[in-house]
């Protein structure tokens, strides 16, 4: 049983190779394929991989929101709404402040966008932890609220002035292939790569992470040894929603530079698939997000090359793989035991 024992991370690590041999062999094959195609056509390969990373950024942020929430036992299907609302709030903030602050307004927009995500998280936590509401309904409330609020307050023709531009990391950006893909990106993309590592460390190598997983598995046991279940859940949901907020701010302030109604276009729901595919681990989610991003980029590239496979089929590929993973055909996925159930002390 996964009780609060200090060896939990060690045993998970030992079984990593055995549990993930399929994943590792897929990684190996992918690397060989990338090198092969790079040898064939360096420019196209680099362009596709750069696009894949870009498309994966909001997905992996959304998925990490899901990971933090679900690891503590809360289902969050409001990621889509949180992203949309933060995208709007971040954009409007930067629009309103651009005269007063100039280029700095974008960064204020990012911060406010992230905080507005956190606020949505607070709402979800209040509904699902304090009120013990059905968590699916709580998430749906957030999704509907976000569509309504952003649609009501949105005005045509607002412009942000600018967006966050790419910052090449000196000589690193000149490395072939890797340079363009990883070291020639706008700031929030770098931040996302850093956050993947940070969330991994948080979940597996800190006391907080251990308690979070304990609360997700067996809140009564955690409560018995003195862990504050409510606090753990509140903080994780709020932190996670901040990440979804960052994904929203990324969309308006770094990727596009303006806001449009419903512009998240289901990315928050795809993030849930990404989270499941990645077995609720940050690096797994990153791999899954890259796969989803790659499918989109490949789709574009096939059309660029006038190869007439119906593009819907290529777009379908990652979803089929997700179903295979969730159905347990590729490796084993296990939900946290207390997922979706409210905890009551009595």
């Amino acid at each position, binding site marked *: 049983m996964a009780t609060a024992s200090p060896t939990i991370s060690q045993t998970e690590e030992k079984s990593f190779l055995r549990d993930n041999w399929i994943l590792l062999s897929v990684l190996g094959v992918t690397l060989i394929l990338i090198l092969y195609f790079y040898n064939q056509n360096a420019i196209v390969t680099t362009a596709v991989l750069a696009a894949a990373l870009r498309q994966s950024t909001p997905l992996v942020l959304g998925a990490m929101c899901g990971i933090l929430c679900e690891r503590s036992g809360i289902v969050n299907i409001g990621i889509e709404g949180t992203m949309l609302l933060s995208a709007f709030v971040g954009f409007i903030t930067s629009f309103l402040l651009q005269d007063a602050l100039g280029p700095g307004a974008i960064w204020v927009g990012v911060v406010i966008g992230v905080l507005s995500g956190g606020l949505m998280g607070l709402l979800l936590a209040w509904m699902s932890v304090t009120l013990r509401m059905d968590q699916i309904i709580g998430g749906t409330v957030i999704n509907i609220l976000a569509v309504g609020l952003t649609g009501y307050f949105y005005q045509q023709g607002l412009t942000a002035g600018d967006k966050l531009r790419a910052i090449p990391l000196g000589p690193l950006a000149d490395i072939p292939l890797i340079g363009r893909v990883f070291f020639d990106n706008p700031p929030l993309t770098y931040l996302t790569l850093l956050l993947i590592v940070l969330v991994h460390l948080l979940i597996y190598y800190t006391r907080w992470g251990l308690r979070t997983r304990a609360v997700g598995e067996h809140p009564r046991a955690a409560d018995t040894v003195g862990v504050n279940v409510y606090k753990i859940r509140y903080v994780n949901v709020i932190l996670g929603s901040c990440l979804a907020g960052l994904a929203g701010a990324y969309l308006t302030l770094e990727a*596009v530079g303006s806001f449009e109604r419903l512009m998240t*276009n289901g990315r928050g729901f795809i993030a849930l698939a990404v989270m499941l595919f990645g077995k609720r681990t940050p690096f797994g989610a990153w791999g899954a997000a890259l796969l989803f991003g790659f499918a*989109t980029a490949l789709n574009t590239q096939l059309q660029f090359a006038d190869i007439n496979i119906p593009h819907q089929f290529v777009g379908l590929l990652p979803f089929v793989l997700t179903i295979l993973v969730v159905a347990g055909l590729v490796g084993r996925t296990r939900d946290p035991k207390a997922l979706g159930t409210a905890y009551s002390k009595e």
Partner: protein
Amino acid sequence: MKKLFFSTAVMVLAMIFIVACGGGEESAAEGDCSSEEVFCVGLVTDVGQIDDKSFNQSAWEGVQAAEAELGAQIDFVETKDATDYLANIDLFVEQNYDVIVTVGFALGEATAEAAAANPDIKFIGVDQFQVEPVGNLAGLIFNEDKAGYLAGALAAMLSDSGTIAAVLGTDLVPPVVAFKEGYEAGALSINPDINLISTYHPGGLDVAFTDPEWGASTAAQAMDQGADVIFGAGGITGNGALIEVAGSEGTFCIGVDTDQWETVPEAQPCLVSSAMKLITPGVLGLVTQAQEGSFPSGNFFGEVGLADFHEFDDQVSQDIKDTLSDIETGLGDGSISTGYSP
């Protein structure tokens, strides 16, 4: 319970009475559309606002021109939901409007239905292709392939790298396909060896025109492969592509439908021109014909063309401008074909 029912009924009746009186007063204050002397033109938008800086606004400006030039009495209804098309058209039908303009491909069915039911009212359907001509319904449509052809020729002449791209909405909408086919034919007419990379959004109608991040990311993918002129044709998705190109030195972008210099100011650093559908003069022309009694039925082709070069006027050489005007003449008299057939 009975009391509650009774008081509710009284209130409802009172409200109906008030609304009915209010309506009566309003139509007395304005001219009566059913009379011969008063010429009334109503416009029903597609889902969206009248000041959307795009389709709805362009059509409304045509109607406003009819007010100024023909002394028409005008009004509009903004559609909030796709299920309200027919109800909104009926708002004008009930007031005996002379001409009703409906804006957008999506209103085609409702417009045809209303036209069949009201043979005395003239209907103008912007972007609505008419398969079978009906006497009181004219579809204002455009040869998008010709606008695309001009844009493609311009792109091919501006490109140094020999690679140009198009980021498009969805192939489920015929005008988008026409823009693409025209664009490619135009580019190939200038440079038969040009490398054309173009792509449609993979999603359905619900997302294909409202996904600016996909447009931006796809434009970046095209620029990474050397594309130095990018045509963004797909509503907000295309706008995402334009804004992305604006952030990259030495690349041009071409907008679509209206002069996007005005509608997407973020794209001004790259926006050399736009492949335009001239909706405003098309609507005004049809309204004028309706008043004069020479209203055409079936399909009426509006004009297309390239928008002004604005601040890029110096960078577009006289040679390019001459070639473009030759092509425009050729497309007009039929000596140049875009090769696109719907």
